[in-house]
């Protein structure tokens, strides 16, 4: 299964310090329950993948990790989500602060209709970084980390919308990295991209996990197998199985996981 890319780190879950700990989480959109009794640790400096059929709640869970679901009218959450031991749903938590620590990249590429430079500098500027030289430095570093610098360094002030889809998604990653987050959430980041762009982003994730924790939602099981260290399989809002990626893909304990992985449904 793991072809072509760096071998995922094959340490057991417990060995790594957990970044997030999710305990008994229930999530409701109005009266519809989207997540039921989800409990899982998410280790630091690892790539964790959520897989499962559409509507299984994996994106909802991801969006709970940076409280982006707060925006949805009538949504309700039960249980706890601890980030480094602190509950992120505590009333005293500054949500904007949380979101700078937990960055996010979306399924639909969404660079702002501004220049490339303005896109990357957007986050730092929100934190009142005003000095042009500092901003220039952050922009260059972030674009380098996202592997985009060489391609765009001559057109930093051109529109971000003039880039190709894959470049735009890497720009979104650079934009998220510019605020220096601990965690990067990716919600099906490659679903709209061609295989070459997808490959580049997957390579990028291997490098990024050295410095931060990556959580990725994906529909593509090969992708999960290639990039992740751990995989959680979701079905109808429940976490069915959560283990090392290798175990999930080669020797799943639950028959539903096996059915899904082998393509019998979903």
């Amino acid at each position, binding site marked *: 299964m793991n072809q072509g890319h760096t071998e995922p780190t094959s340490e057991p879950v417990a060995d790594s310090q957990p970044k997030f700990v999710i305990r008994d989480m229930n999530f409701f959109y109005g009266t519809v329950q989207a997540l039921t009794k989800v409990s899982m640790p998410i280790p630091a400096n690892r790539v964790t993948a959520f897989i499962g059929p559409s509507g299984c709640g994996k994106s909802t869970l991801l969006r709970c990790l940076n409280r982006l679901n707060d925006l949805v009218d009538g949504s309700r959450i039960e249980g706890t989500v601890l980030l480094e031991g602190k509950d992120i749903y505590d009333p005293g938590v500054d949500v*904007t602060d949380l979101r700078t620590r937990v960055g996010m990249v979306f399924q639909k590429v*969404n660079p702002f209709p*501004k220049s490339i430079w303005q896109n990357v500098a957007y986050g730092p500027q929100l934190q009142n970084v005003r000095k042009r030289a500092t901003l220039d430095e952050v922009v260059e570093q972030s674009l380098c980390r996202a592997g985009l610098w060489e391609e765009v360094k001559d057109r930093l002030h*051109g529109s971000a*919308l003039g880039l190709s889809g894959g470049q735009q998604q890497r720009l979104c990653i650079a934009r*998220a990295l510019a*605020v220096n987050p601990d965690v990067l959430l990716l919600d099906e980041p490659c679903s709209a991209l061609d295989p070459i762009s997808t490959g580049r982003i997957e390579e990028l994730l291997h490098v990024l996990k050295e410095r931060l924790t990556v959580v990725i939602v994906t529909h593509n099981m090969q992708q999960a197998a290639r990039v992740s260290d751990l995989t959680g399989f979701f079905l109808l809002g429940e976490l069915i199985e959560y283990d090392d990626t290798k175990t999930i893909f080669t020797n799943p304990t639950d028959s539903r996981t096996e059915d899904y992985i082998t393509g019998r449904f979903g």
Partner: protein
Amino acid sequence: MSKFSIKKFHDSGSLFIWLCGGALGLSLLMIGGLLVLIIINGMGYFWPKDLIQFTLKDGRVVLGEWVATETIPGSESSAHPKGKERIQLKVGNRDLYGLDFRWVDRTDIMKEQYPSDVLAFERWEWGNFYGWIKEIQEGETRLAAGNQEGMKVLFPLLERTNGIQERIHTIEHDEIAELNHRLEQARLRLRSLELSGQSRSGDRATIQAHMQEVEALYEVQNTARIALYDELDRFRMTVVDAAGEEQTFPVGTLVKVWLPNSMGVGEKLHMYVQNFWRVLSEEPREANTEGGIFPAIFGTVLMVVIMSIAVVPFGVLAAVYLKEYAKQGVVTRMIRIAVNNLAGVPSIVFGVFGLGFFIYAVGGTLDQLFFAEALPNPTFGTGGILWASLTLALMTVPVVIVATEEGLSAVPREYREGSLALGATKLESLWRVVLPCAMPGILTGLILAVSRATGEVAPLMLTGVVKLAPSLPVDGFFPFVHLDRKFMHLGFHIFDVGFQSPNVEAAKPMVYVTTFILVLVVLMLNMAAIALRTRMRRRYAGSSV
């Protein structure tokens, strides 16, 4: 080949397509017809027309510009199955005959001529005169006799009198106006001293001395002005018209003189452009039926600009609250319905509201608080360009709210989430990402608002428009923009010239010209806003690398 069948035609759906196409075509035709009518009638006004001289069967001679030819209603007979025709001429010479226009029956005409040496005189008063020069005098001495010699003397003389007229205009509108302004300021200072109860005689004496100084300056200017008027009156000319009637007037009352029948196309074109420019740049004369419409153009544009400055922030803020912050539900739905209905309220209702609220309530209070020294003369407590603009802003704010809300809805959710995910607050996201993206929608609202406001007349009549404003709302005296002043407006000008003028027939071309220019102004204001929107769109569309 199969026969054409109604059923087949109906079933194919072509009927519906024809119906839609027909409706669109008809609307285009009507709009096109309207524009062509306005353009032809409006643009024709500037063209120096030939003067026709008809000799009638009874021996009378009529000279004038052709205006129209029509069939006399009810004149059909066996001899004239299609009816008799009559021709309308603009004969001018109002001071001789009382009327500018005359109908001539085609059957009465014996001879039709275009005399090459006939002159057209445009005068400051009494309209045009068509005829020939008999003699020109300076005081009692005769400078020239006859048309040929007269022309040689007249043209240089005209340049001189036009120079004097300009000088008088400067004295009256700049120098004396400034002195009046200073005098008025001094009077107000005096009055406010009185009101405040501090009767320090030192202050009063200084102000009174200043007033005397200004009055002395005024006397100087006035003497100069009177001398210039005397100079204008010195040269007099006697002219004779086609019927042999004579008329004497000072050369100083002439605006310009031309030879319509012997001008080439090039010369006429030159004069055409000149006439057009004069209408755009000059002030009206003769109860607005002649001269230019510059103050009306200026008033219209300034009013729309002030309205835009007021309506955009107001409308955008309201729409942002309604769309982004207010809890969506029954209340917001009702507010939305109310806002939409507000756009349909007749404009005169807004005029009444503007009069009651802005002028009497707000303006009256302002006067009592800040302009007490000028009372009982109102400053803001009467119609003015500010109140008219704000009334129109109120009238057009629903349009801006609706357009902004639509613009906000069109901003993809991904942009908002992307911004929030970077640690932006809602306000920061709105200000830095959402509103810039909604800008094209906001500008669409502004375009609609400007179109509606520019053409609106009814509310203005209650809130500050006048048929003749003594001065523009912007001038050289502090604070330069006088928002309390009354102003002229193209839409009202059309109504005034066309329907309130004592000489309706003479005013008709002016109505078309003003209409044409109003359409032009609307078009240009819209073009400016559209250009801005296109720039915004390009900036946010990504092709501008």
